[in-house]
């Protein structure tokens, strides 16, 4: 406050000094308000801080801490560790499996005798052990740790004196006290499952692999003489009664000639595929057919001048890890092969560099796609194969013989000639990196990197796919379509109610619309899913036509209105005007209901040839354009080109309708529009005409405005409306032709296959949810424009419409803009409507008739299942952070723009 003012006021103040009590209350109120304000700011900042605090660990690497160091000479064929990391078992080719207590380093007196073997395959995930005997027979069994929970009463007095956490070596295992009266005994057990007799020639086995895939136990072996075979034992168990039957079949591998002996054989994809890898890096892949494993392809796994030092399949057996002599680990993956032209093949996805020494030891985790690699210099690294995140690293002893990851991925071991070294591991969140959350990731089996959100599965071998991009996309898609529907209606309604509606009516209409805002969004979602979606499905063409016809009907009526005889149009009460508009709306709805299906059949007509194609009356095309020959799959653009030459694509074959079948087909009961939307038949033209009609109407409207500018004839408005509609049709046709000539097809972008739960429905219902708020705030903004401005404008001879458009609207623009932005924020965060009305499908296309999944719906759907503190849980919090960021950016930019507008209008 300026000084002079204060001085002038002083005598007044002194004269009427407020009482002490009032001052006190004033002071108290001030501090309470300040406190409240600060608390709100603190709460908001606190929430952001908490969200970030939960999300932060996702970006962190794993932690490695040294564990035990035991001196023990080992020469393992393979080694395993139990899930509590108390016992390490080491299998030696002489046929002994020795166990060592990791706590004390003592050897367990009793060792398992499995008999001598030349090659062994052990699968840590299922415990399946296959031992190739010197006589070329194979023994198959299950090797596992058995854990018994014991009570104090089960033990003798000496054993029960352990303190909690202490481990004691027993004759056949280790005993650990885990609680007050609880003990845990861990022992190694081996159970024989079967034996494969040696082949007649008794040629020794040179490479073997075995794994259990659900009901199948599969053992694959290659012999020195170049023969190979796969035994598949299928066990079917009835759920009740325990009856089971086993079927054994043996399939030969049709080995191709190779100068080199195989280094390893790896079963892939549930045993349906296998790869035989030689030291030079040549990998021959064989696929299972009814009678044999047939040769499929040869790949070169390592680069020039390098050789393969180690081979290990990744969890799930869809990828092979190859350790090279140059110090790298290569991730080779078997792609799925799909309908869009992809073929099944081994591809190199990624390389991981350990050091410069050969990577001779590899092992994989049982929990996820993490693997451990050790090179001959003793460097040990753990990576997550899919995300590429470095999980841990350590320097181990030189000449590592074997590396092992603990079953729970909470530690790892290195076995060398000198002893056993163990480390504790906190893997953190190996499956995600900032990159994998937002950029395409190359998942197992895929042809190329992709953006996928599919968070959980029944078992650990399926990988979680956590890309937030489809969710962000879904949020934007839902918001944009909702705004497209809501903003014009809400803002125009606000202009009407503020500037044209009589006060008395306005005071009733406004609260009524505001009541709409109090409708719980779950109710709207329910209406969308149960009533709207089936209705739109059944009457799609009518609904779409209605969106154009109803506004047009109102325009026409507004054109007819001034033609009323005499000055009737002015004298009639406004309620009659409103009723007339209502009648026009109803008329528009009636017209669209009746012409919708007709327009659908007319515009998207399926001709006889196409009917024949749809009905499957086709034959192979004889003349195929050069470019299309040998193509395995066709894009929509390809198909459009072919269609112009009378060719069609069915099941990836180029076909033509059979000549003799070109008779009139019975009228299909379906709307041709929906068939057209699938992209199977029809030219792109009608879609463009339909899409471009509204913009053409706008263009024509602008042009028609100019007709008879200076004239005040009564019939002019009607002429303008009529001319714009008449002109819109040719303009739309011309624009559509241009689009088609450019090779565009709307079915690739905002149109596509119709599904019942779709964005269109969400857009409309969510539009309804945000209309009240945008309407109310815009209306308030216009009401706050000083009446003096209106009076000046009207007094200067402007019409009510001119006043509204040129005076009120610009002044109120900042308020309207912020109303729209608040609506946008509401739409972006809306949960229940999208949750119920869409299929929650995380797709990435703009198809208005397709589904979507938003960030908020994703949080609502998945949070109850997420393990507190787990990766998934934190990713869901990240969804919250991203959503917050989106609304923050929207609101901040809105505020900046609003301030700008406000400054301008303040100058008035």
């Amino acid at each position, binding site marked *: 406050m300026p000084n002079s003012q204060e001085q002038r006021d002083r005598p007044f103040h002194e004269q009427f000094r407020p009482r002490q009590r009032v001052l006190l209350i004033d002071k108290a109120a001030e501090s309470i308000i300040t406190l409240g304000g600060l608390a709100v700011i603190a709460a908001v900042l606190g929430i952001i801080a908490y969200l970030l605090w939960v999300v932060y660990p996702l970006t962190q690497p794993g932690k490695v801490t040294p564990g035990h160091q035991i001196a023990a000479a080992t020469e393992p064929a393979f080694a395993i560790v139990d899930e509590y990391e108390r016992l390490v078992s080491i299998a030696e080719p002489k046929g002994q499996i020795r166990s060592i207590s990791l706590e004390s380093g003592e050897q367990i007196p009793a060792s398992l005798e499995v008999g001598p073997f030349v090659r062994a395959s052990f699968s840590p995930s299922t415990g399946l052990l296959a031992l190739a005997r010197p006589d070329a027979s194979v023994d198959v069994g299950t090797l596992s740790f058995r854990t018994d*929970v*014991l*009570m104090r009463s089960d033990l003798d007095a000496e054993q029960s004196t352990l303190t909690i956490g202490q481990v004691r070596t027993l004759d056949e295992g280790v005993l650990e006290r885990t609680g007050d*009266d*609880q003990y845990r005994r861990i022992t190694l057990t081996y159970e024989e499952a079967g034996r494969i007799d040696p082949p007649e020639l008794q040629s020794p086995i040179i490479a073997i692999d075995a794994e259990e895939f659900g009901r199948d136990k599969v053992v694959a072996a290659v012999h020195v003489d170049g023969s190979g075979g796969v035994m598949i034992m299928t066990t079917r*168990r*009835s*759920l*009740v*009664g325990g009856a089971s039957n086993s079927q054994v079949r043996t399939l030969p591998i049709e080995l191709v000639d190779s100068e080199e002996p195989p280094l390893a054989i790896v079963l892939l994809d*549930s045993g349906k595929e296998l790869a035989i890898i030689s030291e030079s890096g040549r990998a021959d892949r064989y696929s299972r057919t009814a009678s044999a494993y047939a040769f499929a392809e040869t790949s070169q796994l390592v680069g020039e001048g390098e050789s393969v030092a180690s081979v290990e399949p990744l969890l799930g057996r869809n990828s092979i890890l190859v350790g090279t002599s140059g110090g790298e680990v290569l991730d080779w993956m078997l792609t*799925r092969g*799909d*309908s*869009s032209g992809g073929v099944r093949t081994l591809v190199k996805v990624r390389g991981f560099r350990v050091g410069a020494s050969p990577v001779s030891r590899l092992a994989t985790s049982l*929990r996820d796609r993490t693997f451990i690699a050790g090179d001959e210099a003793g460097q040990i690294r753990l990576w997550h194969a899919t995300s590429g995140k470095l999980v841990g690293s350590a320097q181990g002893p030189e000449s590592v013989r074997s590396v092992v990851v603990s*079953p*729970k991925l909470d530690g790892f071991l290195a076995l060398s000639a000198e002893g056993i070294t163990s480390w504790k591991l906190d893997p953190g969140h190996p499956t995600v990196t900032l990159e994998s959350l937002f950029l395409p990731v190359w998942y197992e*089996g895929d042809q190329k990197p992709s953006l*996928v959100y*599919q*968070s*959980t*599965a*029944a*078992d*650990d*071998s*399926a990988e979680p796919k956590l890309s937030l991009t489809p969710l962000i996309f879904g949020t934007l898609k839902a918001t944009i379509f909702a705004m497209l529907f809501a903003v014009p209606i809400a803002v125009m309604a606000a202009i009407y109610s503020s500037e044209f509606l009589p006060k008395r009516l306005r005071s009733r209409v406004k609260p009524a619309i505001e009541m709409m805002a109090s409708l719980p969004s779950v109710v709207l979602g329910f209406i969308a899913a149960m009533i709207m979606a*089936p209705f739109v*499905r059944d009457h799609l063409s009518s609904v779409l036509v209605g969106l154009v016809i109803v506004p047009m009907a109102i325009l026409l009526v507004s054109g007819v209105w001034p033609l009323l005889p005499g000055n009737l149009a002015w004298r009639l009460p406004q309620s009659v005007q409103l009723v007339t508009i209502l009648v026009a709306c109803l008329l528009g709805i009636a017209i669209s209901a009746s012409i919708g299906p007709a327009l659908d059949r007319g515009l998207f007509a399926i001709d006889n040839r196409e009917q024949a194609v*749809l*009905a*499957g009356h086709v034959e192979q095309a004889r003349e195929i354009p050069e470019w299309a020959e040998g193509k395995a799959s066709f894009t929509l653009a390809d198909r459009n080109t072919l269609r112009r030459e009378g060719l069609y694509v069915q099941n990836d074959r180029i076909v033509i309708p059979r000549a003799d079948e070109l008779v009139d087909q019975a009228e299909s*009961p*379906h709307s041709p529009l929906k*068939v057209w939307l*699938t992209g*199977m038949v029809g030219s792109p033209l009608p879609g463009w005409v339909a899409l471009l009609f509204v913009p053409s109407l706008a263009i024509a409207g602008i042009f028609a405005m100019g007709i008879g500018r200076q004239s005040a004839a009564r019939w002019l408005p009607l002429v303008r409306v009529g001319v714009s509609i008449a002109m819109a049709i040719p303009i739309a046709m011309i624009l559509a032709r241009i689009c088609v000539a450019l090779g565009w097809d709307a079915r690739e972008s905002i149109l596509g*296959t119709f*599904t*019942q739960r779709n964005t269109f429905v969400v857009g409309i219902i969510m539009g309804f949810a945000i209309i009240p708020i945008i309407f109310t705030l815009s209306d308030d903004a216009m009401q706050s424009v000083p009446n003096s401005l209106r009076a000046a404008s009207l007094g200067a001879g402007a019409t009510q419409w001119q006043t509204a458009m040129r005076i009120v609207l610009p002044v109120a623009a900042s308020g309207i803009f912020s109303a729209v932005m608040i609506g946008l924020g509401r739409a972006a965060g809306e949960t229940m409507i999208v*949750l119920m009305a869409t*299929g*929650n*499908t*995380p*797709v*990435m296309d703009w198809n208005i008739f*397709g*589904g979507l*999944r938003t960030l908020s719906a994703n949080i609502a*759907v*998945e949070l*109850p*299942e*997420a*393990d*507190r503190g*787990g990766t998934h849980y934190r990713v869901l919090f990240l969804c919250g952070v991203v959503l917050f960021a989106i609304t923050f950016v929207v609101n901040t930019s809105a505020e900046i723009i609003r301030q700008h507008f406000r400054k301008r209008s303040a100058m008035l």
Partner: protein
Amino acid sequence: MMKRVMLAFAAVGLMSGSASAQDKAHPLDEALPNYEAVQGVTGSIKSMGSDTMNNIMTLWGELFMKTYPGVSVEVIGKGSSTAPPALTEGQAQFGPMSREMKAAEVDRFEEVHGYKPTLLRTGIDCLAVFVHKDCPLESLTLDQVAAIFSVKGPEMTWGDLGITDSAWRNQPITLYGRNSASGTYGYFKQVALGGNDYKDTVKEQPGSSAVVQAVATDQYAMGYSGIGYATQDVKAISLAEDSASEAYAPDLEHAYTGEYPLARFLYVYINNNPGRKLEPLRAEFIKLIFSRQGQEAVLKDGYFPLPADMAAEELKSVGL
């Protein structure tokens, strides 16, 4: 009008027909013990987990509350994946699940409690693939199911499944499924889809009944859920392991033999400290589950009961 009356009549006929057929073909095992109330059972029970088993848990809960008026039972069924965190954090005593716990979930439990959770098999379900009741499709192989629902196959129309009816053949198949919290979602992905990802066009519904409802109202839809949610408006189709084997209907006989490829157990997980006796409240509830009355409820809910020897085995595993 006439037609509608006839239809309604036919529906009633069908219903009574299937009900009587069920009574004959799916009898309860006579040897299941009768449940007898004991003294001194009070407290409250909370169950959290599978949506597939929501009704069944509620039925058991009602039976239990009828027997012991002093007991309250609360059942929340948002999906199997909600059971492990609830059990681990002690928010619920019972965790019904339609799949087995994942290793990581068991780890979390063991980290907190020092022992593994205990699994009880309480009934048998056939995960069914549903189509609209008017759909001409009768059977599928698992490979076809995988091609329809997973990224392994292209977008399909009903004609791709061999339907020649002109009203169906060019219609795309609309797919409905469960949300990822569901054990059914995971089981279906693992067993029926061979571990392949779902197509991103499979619409995720928050509950089994929502899936069945969607299929009932969407003529060209296909969806999956537990057999217990079947209604008159949908049809559960027969499934074959592969093209070489026969297709079996999801019924008790083929569930017991394991011939129906998607037959599975319905599990209830509990936090059972080994070596310590269960307290009467939980012990009695478990006894009720494996009694004649409890298994009758399983049957009533549309699932298949356990035979008596298996029920006894499950009781024995928790020392009852």
